[in-house]
């Protein structure tokens, strides 16, 4: 039972890391993980998320 839970958590983390890696490669990871609001340079993150 415990082992299944551990496996599930690790698998979840693996999926998350895969997604992070994908997002990084496609330039969607801006490091701060924010959507415009809380950046040092306002709007900068929107820029990283896909400039128009």
């Amino acid at each position, binding site marked *: 039972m415990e082992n299944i839970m551990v496996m599930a958590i*690790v698998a979840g*983390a693996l999926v998350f890391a895969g997604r992070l890696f994908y997002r*990084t490669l496609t330039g969607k990871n801006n490091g701060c993980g924010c959507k*415009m609001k*809380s*950046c040092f340079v306002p709007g900068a993150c929107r*820029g*990283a998320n896909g400039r128009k």
Partner: protein
Amino acid sequence: MSAVATPPSKRAARVVALAGNPNSGKTTIFNALTGARQHVGNYPGVTVEKKEGTVKFGDDVFTVVDLPGTYSLTAFSLEEIVAGNFLIDGKPDAVVDIVDASNPERNLYLAVQLMELGAPVVLALNMSDMAREKGLSIDTKKLSALLGMPVVATVGHKGRGLEELLKAVRTICRDDPLPPKPARRVDYGREIEPHLDQLAARLAVRPACAGHARWLALKLLEGDGDTANRIRSLCPEDCGDIFRETDKLRKHLEGVFGEEIGAVLTDRRYGFIAGACAEVVSQTAEARISQSERVDRIVLNRWLGLPIFALLMFATFFLTFTLGQPLMDGIEAGFGKLGEAVAALWPAGGESRLKSLLVDGIIGGVGGVLVFLPNIMLLFLAIAFLEDSGYMARAAFVMDRLMHRIGLHGKSFIPLLIGFGCTVPAIMATRTLETRRDRLATLLVLPLMSCSARLPIYALLIPAFFPPEWQGPMLWIVYAIGIALAVAGVKLLRITLFKGESAPFVMELPPYHLPTLRGLLVHMWERSWMFLRKAGTVILGISILLWAMSVWPKPGPETMAKFERDRSAIEARKDLSGEDRRAALEKLEHEQGEAELEQSLIGRIGRGVAPALAPLGFDWKISTSLLGALAAKEIFVAQMGIVYSVGQADEESQSLREKLRENYSPLQGFCVMLFCLISMPCMATLTVVWRESGSWKWALFQAGALTALAYTLTLAVFQAGSFLGWGTR
């Protein structure tokens, strides 16, 4: 009055562009209109990217676009190009030109250009309360008639005048009633006007140019490249003729005036504005020296400027560490208790994977990073204060001389300062730099400014290895090494890859601005939230994976069987007292833990990499942590926590620092910090560099060069240190 056929609600949202000089309060108005909670900084060019928001006014819906601050439609920096292109090519339904009412003359320059462009402009005289304080009063009716655009007085931060502004925007969007024709236009004098008219008439034949032929003619005359391209696409057949004609005309006029025609036209526009201001603006009270100027006499003083700057920097980091320490200790103790409490859920001595995951992986990993939240919050608070107060521009001034010597200018210093917070936004802040050379040189060395993610590494290692009286100086040394390397790096780049002069450094000095406590706290919280989110997502995920990698695969059955045999052998021995037996068993368990860790994936990888890093004084545990740090620098701390808690099966709670002190020498500790400071930046930084520089080449170059530099420097320091016997045990 506007009984149009289509009901207003059915129409698509109108696009309203907010334009204006930097520091005219554009972002404040944008926030007040759209209700978006955003950051309002104080140095020119704070709005880097196109930001949109919607506002509903009665039946109308407007899409408001906040453009980067710009002084004119002649663009210099990247952000000004963005603004100019949107105003000219984006064809917004209305343009709100935000004018700092306390400084009308300079601010109206953009308005005049917009007027010449023929854009549907509404003028917002912002900060009209400040203007009144300065003793300026502006006759809005007269100004409106002169420029042919509605004029509204607003006070952005109090939300005053916004309704009138929206009303004016609605009117101009509906074209009903038609906006008044400007009472006057800029008269360029009898030398220029006839030629201008002729050129405009020629362009006006084209229906595509008819709307703003005069403006196009003016821009052609100025020799504006963008306009030339525009003409080329509008009338490809005879653009050659037009260009020849303008070139001839420009040469002729420059002969007459003895200077570039652009400068002459600008002068005429300012002349027009001066005339308009004389009619419209009246100075009711004696102008007095503002508070800002008085403060600047000291802050910008030739002799005091640098010491004040150094003092502020010192205060920033002093605050970060001293004030943060007790809070940090509290959180550390809290996580220790939490770990014990979670561990207590399982029967003592039993082996449980889930327990190990929770205690070693998550609490040991993420908790180890979260401990530094107070320091990071304080650092962010200090940076928010420097930004919001307007000191950043002063720092640019103070540092200009130094920056000039290494081939950059003061403006580059602002991104470098932001780099102490986080490298990613700092790289984006380089957009305010005008030339690509300056930008690339700045962003390539930016990772050398120790970002807040590296703070936990220093904060973990310094107290572990250095006596209290050395902890402060040590931190300074690490930061200073980063800065010194950045300086040397820029100089090197300037004499090799990016030769040539840097762009002229002209920047407006915004008035000081006493930050509100609420504003500071909001900014601090937003950025700390970012850190928390990172801890809860990236660091959590990677910690779990690293934990799994350090637990699996298990050693083969022979090894396990050997430990089992040893265990029963010890238990069977009759000659040992209870005390000794427990100690022997503990030792055995420790050995088993180490063996298991070495057999695990992370152990194998670590030992694979370790030979390469051994000359730097790193064992395989440090090596794996350095690999983990590529995802985010804080993971170094998390991973050290994991390997040292997985490896030790004993229950006694020894803090990570104590374990580090037991296993490494101060020299090794210093080398780890040095390597973390210089080596390859985190993934997020690399991608941002890639995107901002437009090619993978620069990102890879940066990663490669920094890693090589880190390797050689650390190698030199460790070998020299070991040879001389510094910091070894």
